[in-house]
Each structure stands twice: as C-alpha cells, then as structure tokens.
C-alpha cells in the first residue's frame, strides 16, 4: 500500500486528522484501489480491536503510598547528606560562612552577598580583594558546587534533581513543614 499512498498519511487519515489538502487525493485513491481500501478498513478495525485490552484501576492506597514516599524523602534530608560526605562538608562550610556573616561587625568591610537560595551549601571564601566580590555564590573550595558552572552538568537531569533535593531539604527545615 505504501507504493500507492504515503505511509505518513494513513494513520492521520484513519484518525480524521489528515490535512484537507492531502485528504482529497487519499480518498480518491481509496475509491479507485480496492486493495488499499480493504487494507485501510482492516487497519481501522485493528485499531478498534486494540481497545479490548483494558488498563487497570489504581489501587485505593496509591495516593497514600505516594505521599508517604514524598514525605519520607523530604524527612530523610540528614540521611541523604550522610550518604554524601562531600555534600555534608559543603553544607558544614556553608554553616561556618553563615555564622561568620552573622557575627560580622558593621562599619568595616561590606560582607559578601548571601546566596538567594537559603541553605545552598556555599564553601567559605577567603577574603577577596576589594572590588572583586562575586555577585553569585562562589564555587571554589567545593568540587560539588563547581560543577554548577559546567553547562554539560546543567543538562544532567539526575544531578540537577539531586541539587533540587539539597535546596528542598534546607527549605523544609526553615519552614518547619514537609509536604
């Protein structure tokens, strides 16, 4: 049949979604070609028969189980860090930085800007020369954070998901709530 009709037109024709400009020639060919007509009708029938394969209804416990998994994941923040010592170290470094900033005496040098996302593990920075303060969280001192500057890594869905969890864990701690 593909010699008579374009393959890519046949399913859209069956779906009734073929472009009107293409539909006329297909209908004309089917009117004139009994073999193609029979084949198209069988295709239509088989698409209908596929509907006899039923799906399954979700278990009544599906939502509760899912919510439990989400809540568990949020609550396992400390365990998650424990599994990744380098991240834990980065977080500890961030705490040190936060303490240092909190105890900063005003009237001296302007403190470095804080990262917008609370809880982002920022490694402590040596005092940079005046006028060279970064506007984004610095990444030196932490390989894990340095990868954020790598565009290839930013395309890595799994790794980004892990960053998301890091942000979320800290956010949930601050809010004192979990989803």
């Amino acid at each position: 049949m593909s010699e008579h009709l374009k393959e890519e037109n046949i399913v859209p024709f069956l779906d009734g979604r073929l472009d009107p400009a293409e539909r006329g020639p297909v209908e004309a060919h089917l009117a004139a070609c009994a073999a193609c007509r029979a084949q198209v009708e069988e295709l239509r029938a088989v698409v209908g028969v596929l509907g006899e394969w039923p799906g399954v209804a979700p278990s009544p416990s599906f939502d509760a189980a899912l919510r439990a998994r989400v809540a568990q994941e949020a609550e396992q923040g400390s365990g998650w860090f424990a599994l990744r010592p380098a991240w834990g170290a980065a977080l500890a470094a961030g705490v040190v930085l936060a303490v240092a900033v909190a105890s900063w005496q005003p009237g001296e040098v302007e403190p470095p800007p804080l990262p917008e996302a609370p809880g982002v593990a920022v490694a402590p920075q040596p005092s940079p020369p005046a006028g060279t303060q970064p506007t984004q969280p610095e990444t030196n001192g932490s390989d894990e954070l340095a990868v954020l500057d790598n565009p290839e890594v930013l395309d890595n869905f799994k790794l980004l998901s892990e960053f998301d969890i890091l942000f979320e864990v800290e956010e949930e701690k601050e809010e004192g709530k979990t989803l």
Partner: protein
Amino acid sequence: MGPAVARTDEEWMLVLKAGVPREREEAFDVLVGKYRTPVIHFLYRLVHRREPAEDLAQEVFLRVYRARKSYQPTAKFSTWLFRIATNVALNALRDGRMRHEREMSIDADTGPEASGLPLAERLPDGMATAEQALVERERAAEIRRAVEELPEKQRLAVLLHKYQEMDYAEIAEVLECSESALKSLLFRAYETLRVRLRPLLGARA
C-alpha cells in the same frame, strides 16, 4: 474537594515549583489526581502487572516532585510527564527489574476484572458468563502479546497514540523523533498488528 482555582497543568507545576508548602501540596495533589490513571495504564501496558506498574508510577511522580525546581514550562506538562514515564519504564525493563515480573505474568491482570470493576458491571446484561469472560481475557492477552512483540519505539508510539490519545506533536516529542517519522512509525506498527491480529478482526468479543 476540588481545587479552588482553575489552572493549567503548567500553571500547577509552577505553583509546585515556587509556592508555599500548602500550595505545593495542593498542586501536587491536582497533578497526581489528573494523571495517576493515565500513567498507571501506560506503565501497566509496558510491564503487564499492576503492582510493578504502580511502583513505577510512584517513581514517576516522585521524579516530578524532585525536578519541580528545574521545571520550565517550555513543553506541555503531559509531554514532560510521559517522557519521564517512558524513561522510568525503559530503564526498569532494561536493567532487569521487570524481567521477573514479566516472566511471572500469566495475564493475571489482563482480564475484565483488571479494570477494577466487577465483570457484571462491564458486560451487557446476560453476558457476564464465565465463557464470555474467558473469551474476552484471551483476546486481551492476544492483543497484549502482539503489542509486546513490536519493536520498542513502535510499541511506545502505539501506547501513546491509541491508549493515551496524545497528539502527534506530543508523541514525537516524547519519542524524540519528527512528526513525519512518527506517522510512518505508527503506520508500520499498526500494519504489523493488522497482520498479527487478523484472526481477531472477524469475531469481536
């Protein structure tokens, strides 16, 4: 109680991304409520049993939750969701997690009862007989086997087109191919099924 505000899926996803916890919870519930059945159906037709399909569906929604902060509404939410579902299912099938489940599958979930409704409620009056149920179950099993024998990409295309009723552009995006290639892919899949399932065409259940 339904959501107080009518939002698109993409808007709910943005609430899940940036809302306060109570709003995020509502957004997640709305999205799960809308897509749990389609996602479970899709995964069930790939792994053939309810329990592993639900496990994978939970993994899919968990990934949505985890990835919410990197979500960008550049594509339809459903496209993004089924891309995740496809990846989760294929990873599970390829790493052997589902092998045992599939080998153990003896169509236990492929009967009329699989819809979750009692047989008598699914069949017209007077047809809820054991014989009718057996015929229906055999036909469903034959269809399942025919779809399962399709090459992977054709199988996914059929599941998304026939059972999820997604449009060509969405399916093409999920399967990472052109719309034109998808239409040819679907034709070849249905052509294989036409030959394979011809015995079923003459005698509907």
